[in-house]
């Protein structure tokens, strides 16, 4: 429509492209300016359809701006700014470029109006975000990054296949609600692509693997965009698809169970992303106006409080070099403000009254109860218990209190992070409290107009009882939660082990067969040979020469023949082994048939 329409994601993408040209004196202002411009652009977006480009037979729509896209775009742009502020001390351009391309393409996906544009940005997200994992620079992060990329490429292929099938069967290129009442293969493929990015079990293991291994600033970005873009895509394509309800509830509890076992603070938070996205997926499945509003509100609140939690644990990792509970503890003396901010994040995710989760999560739970899906309501309440147990209690307790497990070096390095990290955490904390305390601000941004009052006496009382008695349970079973240096196997075990099995098969059995065959001939060939030689010498000593000489010659001949066999190349040995085992099998069959 209008050539002058500026895509908010484009500001970040162009900003990333120009970054190497910026002189180092202006680097920090530039890093803050571009995300700020992006955020302002989203704030002043007019609703409508913009940026339509005819490309061959396709019509690419880059700017479908409606209430749903705007609420996601708003919080993503806000998070780009906060994340960049947090990451400001990172030297060099590469990490900043990766984060901006990643955030810009997430905005691109959110405002995309057709499947082709969606797919384009979907892939760009995967290929830019993997650098945030690799740039950690550890040996493990290389592996994690490759696994992350492979899984997402596989998901992208599913999505692309689905899109092509969908459109070649007469479906529209426009990305809108799919007809899931008459499911087709195309629809299932598209759904699988979305569910993989939303980290729905069993397609979830990439998330803790990658987010626990990414750079400190990288995780703050990662936790905001990929899963929330997937939630947005699910709302667009599958709102009201009932199968998502049980999937979401399973997710919500799955993440909680693994969080109990987790020793690494950032992996624990990653498992809680799965849990929280579970609420959203279940809400999408419920699909009523209240539920969809709840999903949008929860995604909004989640991006901020989860970002805050990753900032807090990331600050500890940045300063001390440790993120494992078994290597931390008692840090409140060294990093009290980081503790306070992380606690605010923990209280927000746990939906404490006056914190952001309280006004967002309850809408999804209420929608479940209102649709008379009581099991959904109760199981999500149980997941809330688990959320407070870990993020509100376990994380702060074992990092900042509890037994001091720090090594001398860790303790010495620990102090408050640089000013920009503190600034990013304080602004995000303030937003979490503001959203929780003044709910109309968030509610006015939601796609449907509605009357919902989170602060009823019953809801406040219910939540306080639930959470405070969870704390009692935590302290009763505190010993059970003591951190141990262990890892928990998850679904990624299959593909991580498969790679090893593949290598193993390629190497080990062939070598082993060779060694085995050699050994067999040593035992079967040489030992009898030596024994018979000894016998021969006995004969030689005691029996008349002529006959004995002949025997020795014979034995020597057999020995030579066996030795040539033993020197034989692998194929020959294999063939002989096969032949021998064939004979043994034949004999056994003949014996057992009688």
């Amino acid at each position, binding site marked *: 429509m209008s050539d002058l329409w500026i895509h908010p994601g484009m500001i970040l993408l162009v900003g990333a492209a120009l970054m190497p040209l910026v002189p180092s004196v202006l680097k920090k202002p530039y890093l803050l300016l571009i995300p700020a411009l992006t955020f302002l652009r989203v704030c002043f977006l007019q609703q409508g359809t913009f940026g339509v480009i005819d490309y061959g037979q396709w019509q690419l729509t880059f700017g479908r701006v409606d209430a749903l896209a705007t609420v996601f775009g708003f919080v993503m742009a806000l998070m780009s700014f906060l994340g960049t502020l947090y990451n400001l001390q990172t030297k060099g351009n590469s990490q900043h470029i990766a984060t901006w391309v990643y955030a810009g393409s997430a905005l691109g996906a959110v405002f995309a109006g057709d499947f082709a544009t969606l797919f384009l940005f979907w892939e760009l997200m995967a290929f830019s975000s993997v650098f945030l994992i690799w740039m950690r620079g550890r040996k493990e992060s290389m592996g994690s990054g490759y696994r992350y990329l492979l899984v997402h490429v596989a998901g992208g292929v599913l999505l692309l296949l689905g899109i092509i099938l969908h459109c070649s069967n007469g479906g529209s290129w426009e990305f809108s609600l799919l007809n899931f009442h008459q499911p087709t293969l195309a629809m299932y493929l598209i759904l699988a692509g979305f569910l993989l990015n939303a980290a729905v079990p069993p397609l979830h293991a990439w998330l803790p693997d990658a987010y626990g291994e990414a750079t400190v600033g990288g995780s703050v970005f990662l936790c905001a965009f990929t899963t929330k873009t997937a939630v947005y895509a699910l709302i667009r394509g599958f709102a009201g698809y009932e199968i998502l309800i049980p999937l979401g509830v399973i997710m919500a509890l799955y993440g909680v169970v693994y969080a109990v076992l987790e020793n690494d603070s950032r992996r624990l938070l990653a498992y809680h992303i799965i849990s929280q996205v579970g609420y959203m997926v279940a809400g999408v499945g419920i699909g009523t106006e209240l539920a969809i509003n709840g999903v949008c509100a929860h995604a909004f609140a989640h991006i901020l409080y989860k970002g805050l939690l990753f900032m807090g644990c990331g600050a500890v990792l940045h300063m001390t070099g440790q993120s494992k509970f078994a290597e931390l503890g008692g840090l409140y003396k060294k990093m009290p403000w980081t503790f306070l901010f992380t606690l605010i994040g923990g209280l927000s995710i746990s939906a404490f009254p006056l914190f952001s989760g309280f006004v967002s999560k309850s809408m999804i739970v209420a929608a479940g109860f209102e649709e008379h899906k*009581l099991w959904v309501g109760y199981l999500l309440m149980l997941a809330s218990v688990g959320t407070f147990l870990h993020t509100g209690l376990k994380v702060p307790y074992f990092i900042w209190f509890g037994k001091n497990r720090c090594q001398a070096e860790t303790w010495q390095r620990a102090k408050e992070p640089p000013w920009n990290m503190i600034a990013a955490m304080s602004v995000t904390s303030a937003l979490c409290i503001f959203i929780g305390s003044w709910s109309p601000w968030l509610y006015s941004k939601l796609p449907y107009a509605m009357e919902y009052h989170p602060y009823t006496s019953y809801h406040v009382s219910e939540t306080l009882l639930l*959470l405070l*008695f969870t704390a009692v349970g935590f302290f009763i079973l505190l010993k059970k939660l003591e951190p141990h240096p262990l890892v928990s196997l998850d679904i990624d075990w299959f593909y991580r082990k498969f790679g090893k099995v593949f290598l193993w098969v390629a190497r080990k059995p062939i070598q082993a067969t060779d060694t085995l065959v050699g050994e067999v001939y040593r035992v079967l060939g040489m030992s009898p040979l030596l024994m018979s030689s000894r016998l021969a010498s006995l004969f030689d000593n005691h029996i008349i020469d002529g006959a004995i000489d002949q025997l020795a010659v014979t034995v020597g001949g057999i020995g030579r023949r066996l030795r040539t066999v033993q020197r034989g190349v692998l194929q020959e040995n294999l063939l002989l082994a096969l032949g021998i085992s064939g004979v043994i099998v034949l004999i056994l069959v003949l014996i057992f048939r009688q």
Partner: protein
Amino acid sequence: MKLVQFIDFLIQRKRTVLRLCYAVLALLVIWDAIPFFVNKEHAHTDFETIPGFWAVFGLVGCMFLILISKAFGHTGVMKGEDYYNE
């Protein structure tokens, strides 16, 4: 560093703080049980009108989650840290 002093202040008075917490918990249960304060007309199910229902749910749910997860972890899911590096 005033925040540290405040936390230390609380830790030094651990017994008092704990007593205060117990008192708050008890008061909350009582407050929740009085219909004048907490209107349970909009409760979704009958269970919820039982006094202290959510307190029991939170306590039992929390312990249940910890014990079940630990039991699950001990079925062979938890391995040494270098499990994948061997």
